[in-house]
């Protein structure tokens, strides 16, 4: 929808925040993920629930022999749950865990939109809402024409306090990976 406006932008030197973003939708909001963090996009498949985990951890799936966890981004952001549709899919991202290990995690999103090149001068600092809305994991607000993309720092999203403790516990767990 906004790619037309994008192509009119003069290409600028990408700074720290400027670059390619994969955009996706949660409800009416549009979000963006740094493209380098994205490993692949897979269709929604059956997710095995894991008991006694935070509500936003949907469960685990089999990604070609590797078991990875799947996070429901809506639950993570305290948004109401949505119906599963044909467009619901899982974006597999590679994030850095607390201990520097790379870990793959799936995130469930309503719909994947497109890959956008967002210049750094089009990215604004996230507004502050006080304690009501946590903006700590927002890289910035990308303005594409009239629409606004919320650019996520996915590392922070998935390793905020709750996940952090989990990763710590996992580090002590036996190395039973295969």
């Amino acid at each position: 929808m906004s790619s037309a406006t994008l192509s009119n932008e003069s290409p600028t030197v990408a700074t720290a925040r400027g670059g390619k973003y994969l955009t996706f939708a949660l409800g009416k909001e549009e979000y963006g993920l740094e493209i380098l963090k994205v490993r692949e996009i897979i269709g929604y498949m059956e997710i095995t629930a894991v008991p006694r985990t935070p509500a936003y951890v949907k469960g685990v799936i089999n990604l070609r022999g590797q078991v990875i966890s799947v996070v429901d981004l809506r639950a993570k952001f305290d948004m109401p749950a949505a119906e599963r549709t044909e467009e619901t899919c899982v974006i597999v991202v590679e994030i850095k865990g607390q201990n520097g290990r790379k870990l793959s995690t799936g995130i469930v999103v309503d719909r994947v939109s497109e890959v956008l090149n967002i210049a750094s001068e089009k990215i604004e600092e996230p507004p502050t809402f006080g304690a009501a809305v946590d903006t700590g994991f927002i890289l910035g607000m990308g303005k594409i024409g009239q629409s606004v993309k919320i650019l996520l720092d996915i590392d922070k999203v998935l390793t905020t306090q709750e996940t952090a403790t989990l990763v710590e516990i996992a580090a002590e767990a036996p190395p039973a990976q295969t």
Partner: protein
Amino acid sequence: MAETRGVTNELEVINDKCGETTQSVLALTESLIAQVVIVAADDLNALASLHGQLHALAAHCDATGPSACGMSESAARLEKLVERIILHEVPDANQAMAELGKGIVELQLLVGDDSSAEPQQSQEIPVVAAPPAEAPAAHPCEEQTLSPDDLSLIEEFVAEAHGHLESAEASILKLEDNPEDAEAINAIFRSFHTIKGVAGFLNLKQIGALAHSAENLLDLARQGLMRLAGTALDVVLAAVDLMKVLVGNVASAAQSGRPVAADPALGTLLDRLTSCVTGKDQAPVSTAALAATAQPNRESVPNAEEGKTPGSSAAVSADTTVRVATDRLDSLVNMVGELVIAQVMVFQDAKPLLVGKHRLARNLSHLGKITREMQELSMSMRMVPIHGVFQKMSRLVRDLAKKSGKEIELSLVGGETELDRNLIEAITDPLVHMVRNSADHGIEMPDQRAQAGKPRAGRLELKACHHGGNIVIEITDDGRGLDKARILRKAVAAGIVAEGVQPSEQELFKLIFHAGLSTAEKVTDVSGRGVGMDVVKRNVEALRGRIDITSVEGHGATFAIRLPLTLAVIDGLVVKVGAARFILPILSVEQSLRPKAEQLSTIQGRGEMCMVRDSLLPLYRLHRLLDVTPTTQDATQALVVIVQDDSRRCCLLVDELLGQQQVVIKSLGDGVGKVRGVSGGAILGDGNVSLILDVPGLIDVASGNQG
């Protein structure tokens, strides 16, 4: 060399000359050392050349000035000695030769002191980090930067060197039992020789120097000119240790891109090696003296090894092997697992089409066979014999015995038992602790043993075997056994056990795994700090294993570590609860049954119990523990699986049993982390993930036990 005699008055020139002189002095002493090793007392030509060089050395030192006064004197003294040897003026030529060797080593030390004491010399020759006791390679102690082109070669070298060192270590221990074992000497020699060759190629000077010196010593032993026993063997062992450190240094330097750190221990060890070589004909008394002076160095060497090369557990390279990165192997295993799933799916899809199509049916079943074999093969690739770990233990026991003055006979049984590589790595540390514990606490001092009517030498047995799908590693000693009264006393004092309570024998034994409880009267550097055994227990439990203790006071103790064969695969019972499938490890499942109404009872209307063969067991509904909706709430319509964990037994209520299956355990990924009651995930035949239940954890959760 003679040009240094021309002394000028100009300061700069003197400085220059000083550097040059020191260098030539170094070179001279080096060649002296090399010669004195091979020279025989009746070889006049060689002696003459020695004489000449000593003379030249004395002259050099004179020219260098007052700082080299001591050197010129000892050089002159040695010169005289050689003269007397040539003229047959000494009563015992061999002893004189030994003296000569010692003198040259001393001289070498003087040169080292001198060269490090001269500040200006750093401009002329590279900085000498420690008093260099030079082996033929020049300045091995200096810091050295690795060439980036060599990095991949160095990596290979490091892995190879570890293999060589380990086999050398094994041979040394063999040699200790049988000093005449020529094959063992050859094996050690070959190891050092190979290392030296590659180190030379890669220009790793420290390693080259050490390997060279060690090789010199070993060569003598190989030619039968020297017996590799006692001090000499200790020195060789120390050389292996130091070599490990050096190789470790090179490895870390290669990774970090920093120059290779100089190791101060190298100088002293080179000295010891050289003095072993030159002192080959020394009287036994002086050998003992040498051992005494060498002792302080010995302490530092194993410590350094512990600190610097924690991961030097490269498997013993026995046959023709290929080194493969473990993550590659892991992904191969993953892929084969996926192949099996895909194959099963294809097979199921094709089933309706198979009628009358023999060719397709035959090919499909052939494909199935190949995939199964591939899976087995990929699993077996991770299996390695436990032999290497045992070898480490024999080294450990040897050192411990030497340190504590105990006599310990170690026997190793079942070293060929294979287990998962990951497991081998994970079990090494706990095993070290346990062996230390047995050697330090278990086995008594020889005198005590004699008093107790036992042979002076304590016996320690390490045994590995397969036992019903598990691997059992037993550590048995015939020492004093566990002192139950003392454990109880300590436990009461530490507040772990309430006063007046008399725990059962097994419970008492388990107390030694309690953190903060050490029954050692005094803390030694080996054990007794009260940490260790609890860590051991934790580690073993993390590997899904357990430790059993049997002990008879005064007669010894046996610690049996039971571990799964591999961390990767378990036999599981697939159960269905509601729509979800879970896997119970078959090892913890006792039996399953459909309960009759009269078997079930409740306490206060809530706590459910089930009477099975006259024992009343708590009944936990799995769907409540795991938060899923069951197909039925009526227990008599469901099934009960009786599971046990140690002495705890309970019934788990499930909807359906789906069958028994070998599953590959996968971690749930860091994103989920550790969940109580769940030990991992497994990919079932349809490609979906199912959770593997952790029975002890489940029982803890169900019984409200937070520990």
